[in-house]
């Protein structure tokens, strides 16, 4: 059996209390929300906190006020909310594509945005990892995917993160030093180990979505099975339009780097045009070129790269169809 290591479990009722508990626990303390990422990781001994601080009893984090979403809202709640489906279909859709209905009843928005990066050599039991010798993401020194590399290439595998970056959401964080608000794009590092710019003691409190005016976004996901599986590729596409012309755009890929990877060249190909076939093809080609998937998730590497072009094209075609 895969059991959790022993730890102390705390259930604070306020943010202040949670921060104090984390300060008390020091580096051995970790926050948990739905636990659908942290607990499997703890069973595989990726993370071994001595104190686990649950955020689920803090009413502030469950708030859904206007376009500000508390991070402990579950993915089921988020994807079922009619106002949300109407105003932020890409966010609701990405949330609905995560894992399975059971996991979405447990998993939260905040946990999804902070999801640990993934790799075939890392998401294995302790014994498995020990048998081939540990890699640098946990307990070892080498990278099994790119042995001469000084860094870890584990993959950002959240479905909602690319959408949050593409639509320009902002994140409210609270820590011992007080509050700060940062754009979603600045929440992530392109590093498999230090993949968040968030400090370990900071709590992600709220996601602030931009007012739904004049822009539209879609999310497309590639995975082996229609359920359960993490994205092997995620495409979030966002455009702002005025009178049929694209005035601004953002294309963000999930599953191809250690962070949600923005592709400015693809966005540039769309700006000041009409989302015509040529512009879409140019954007898809621009997204294909820099996408450098590594051989550490599902499917053949070169096929995954080819799919970038296909999925970006499909996402943009959906945006075009939906206009008006």
């Amino acid at each position, binding site marked *: *059996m*895969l*059991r*959790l*290591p*022993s*730890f*102390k*479990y705390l*259930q604070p009722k306020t943010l202040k209390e949670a921060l104090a508990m984390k300060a008390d626990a020091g580096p051995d303390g970790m926050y948990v929300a739905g*636990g*659908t990422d942290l*607990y*499997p990781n703890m*069973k*595989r001994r990726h993370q071994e906190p*001595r104190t686990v601080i*649950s955020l*689920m009893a803090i009413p502030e984090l469950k708030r859904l006020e206007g376009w500000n979403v508390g991070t402990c809202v579950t993915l*089921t709640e988020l994807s079922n909310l009619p106002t949300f489906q109407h105003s932020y279909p890409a966010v609701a859709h990405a949330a609905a594509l995560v*894992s*399975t*209905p*059971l*996991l979405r*009843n*447990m998993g939260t928005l905040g946990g999804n945005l902070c999801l640990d990066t993934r790799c075939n050599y890392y998401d294995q039991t302790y014994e498995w990892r020990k048998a081939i010798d540990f890699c640098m993401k946990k307990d070892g020194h080498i990278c099994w995917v790119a042995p001469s590399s000084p860094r870890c290439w584990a993959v950002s595998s959240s479905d909602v993160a690319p959408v949050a970056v593409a639509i320009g959401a902002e994140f409210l964080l609270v820590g011992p030093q007080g509050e700060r608000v940062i754009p979603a794009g600045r929440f992530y590092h392109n590093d498999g180990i230090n993949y968040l710019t968030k400090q370990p003691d900071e709590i992600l409190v709220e996601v602030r979505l931009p007012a739904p005016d004049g822009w539209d976004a879609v999310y497309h996901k590639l995975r082996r099975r*229609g*359920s*359960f599986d993490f994205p092997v590729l995620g495409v979030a596409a966002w455009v702002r339009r005025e009178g049929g012309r694209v005035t601004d755009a953002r294309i963000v890929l999930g599953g191809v780097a250690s962070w949600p990877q923005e592709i400015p060249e693809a966005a540039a190909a769309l700006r000041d045009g009409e989302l015509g076939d040529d512009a879409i093809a140019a954007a898809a080609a621009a997204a294909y070129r820099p996408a450098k998937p590594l051989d550490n998730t599902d499917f053949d590497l070169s096929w995954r790269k080819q799919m970038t072009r296909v999925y970006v094209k499909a996402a943009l075609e959906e945006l075009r169809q939906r206009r008006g």
Partner: protein
Amino acid sequence: MRPDSKAKIAFELNGEPVEVAFAPHKTLLEVLREDLALTGTKHGCELGECGTCTVLLDGAPVLSCLVLGLACERRRVKTVEGLAQGSRLHPLQEAFAALGAAQCGYCTPAFLLTADALLADNPSPNRDDIKQALSGNLCRCTGYIKIYEAVELAAARLRGEKAEPARESLYGRR
């Protein structure tokens, strides 16, 4: 509390109040099977990847292998043991038995509970609603068709209709 001392919580289990003491890092699955001797809830992958450990927590299907026992204080838990009324099977259990929706049976408690939650929410689900609701539960034996048919049959009976299994479901196409 020290990490290795026992914790004690009270919650509602299949309609009855229970109190149970266990090591604080145990999952609900471990507490149910090991501390409450309710082995109807199965353990499979223990990592969220199979669904066989499903229970209803405050009415919603969740994976008991990833819920901490301590997180269930004062909450409502329903396991497969809570479906039958005495010796009378639940309509879902009857339909699963009648249609051969259980083969090895390892996934069955989880499917029954997930379907129970679906029908509480939506008494007349169509095939797509059922597929979607059950898409977090793996079955390696049945190929799922019998399970979908069983949920449809039970749903009809729960709505008060006099439904019988289709001949084709029982005997195949002739």
